[in-house]
């Protein structure tokens, strides 16, 4: 969920390796989009890790710097 008009299908289509259009969009999302503000969500636990200024915060608890 990027909030980005990438128009990616929810799952890779069969024979996605040959689908040029899909590959281009996937490449764009993976390598050309940088999330500056947002969150990462764990697919198992649902826990959200906020992203601030491009850096995701993966700390599980408050750590002393």
């Amino acid at each position, binding site marked *: 969920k990027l909030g980005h008009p990438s128009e990616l299908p929810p799952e890779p289509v069969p024979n996605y390796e040959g689908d040029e259009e899909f590959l281009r969009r996937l490449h764009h999302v993976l390598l050309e989009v940088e999330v500056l503000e947002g969150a990462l969500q764990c697919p198992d636990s649902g826990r959200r890790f906020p992203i601030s*200024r491009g850096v995701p*915060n*993966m*700390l*599980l608890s408050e750590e002393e*710097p």
Partner: protein
Amino acid sequence: KAPPHRPGLAKMSSAEPGRFFCTAGRGLEPFLAREVRARLGATEVDCVSGKVFFRAAAGPGELRKLRSGERLFLLLKKHSPLPVSGNKGKMLHEIKSLVIEEPKYWLDIISVWRKLCGHEGKTDDVSQENTLALKRKSEEETSTASKRQKTEQVRAIMSEECQVEAEEMCVAPERMSGQECWIESKTSSEFPSKGSGENPTVNEKLSFSFRVSCRCSGAIAKILTSQEIGRAIGIALVKQCGWRADLRDPDIEIFVHLNDIHSVVGIPIFRLPLANREYIKTAGLRSTVAWAMASLAEISAGALVLDPMCGLGTILLEAAKEWPEACYWGADISDSQLEGADGNIRTAGLTDKIELLKASVKALPLPSESFDSVISDIPFGKKFKITNDAQLLPDILQEMERVLRVGGTIVLLLSQDLRKCVDGLTKCAGSDSPEATADGDSKADPAKARSVDGSSSCLAHGGGESFLRSRHFGSLVPDGVYAVSLGKTDAFIYKCRKVSAAGNW
């Protein structure tokens, strides 16, 4: 001892071979020796404490790329140590005969040096006019008999034209200092019109400025101070070549280093030390040490490299610049450090190569066996108490070991105490103490460098630390320890390799 090759009409790319030396932080000499061979195809590489001498045919662009050295010099003289006598005058005479040469020698040197420093100095017009002036000056030298006097300021304000105009000028003020000599000639009726009054620009062009930087230690330092030697050489150079002494912003610097090992004379090629990287905005760990650590990690194309305590990202920046065909990840728990690292990465233009995470090294959000290399400067010193260090280390090592693939490398920067802990933790893998002895050959590969303290076993962390002994990292095998100086403190670069998955030994 012969003067360097006369530069022909060679282009920058096909540079003439030259003799150089480069200073290095203590412990980094083997890294620098390896680097000059690999990067510049250097020959006649000679390592001594704090310096690497070599011969190479390289232009300024290539020379500037050296990563493990401090300052690079064009080598003029390298002799055995000067004989030391209690007689100051005799010693100064010896030193001057080491440094002083015919003016023509200096002109050759300056041409070579100009080509090397990429015209950082003034334009070439100056050297041509200097050629004429120096030629005439040397002809007159034989007829002058000026006595050298100690002056407070080494600044001799005689212009080239004045010397050319009047032969007798130098003879008259025999017992006067250089400064007074100038005043004498200025008031003379023979050449006030050509003095500094009328053509200031011409005089400025002709006066080539210099500074002598002298370092001496060992037996010589007991007889003479660096200042005395520097001043004596400066005065002699002014007399010999007619240059102007400028302590603040000279055209050229003459570097003289006298100690018990050798007597060395050189000219620095670049104004800024090599360790100043234009791609690093905020410096953390010294860039030379960071580069040396990365050079041990065996980073190949497509590798994944992690620094789980990256701070300002210095290690990742040095590694990504040198080995750009790999992927770099950095983690830290401090917002301010991450912000600094982010700034550094953007300034260096490496945003597509280095990824940052706010994460703890004790609980890395990364899959097991996913990285080829883990490189880190483990914080030690004032911020962390010794006991805390020892307690944290097993957790830190455990996570590093977990995310590392089999065959991967770990390169850490450790204090003496931390190093003893790590030795204790990894010793059970079965191999001997990590320090291989040096070949006794100064050209030894860094992997065989001897550490400074020379001890062969470091299991000296005292008994009773049961929690340490209960944690064994049998899968981590030590593969080299290198003592390095960080300026005020000493540290150890510690390399080990993961030979099997944990629990499989």
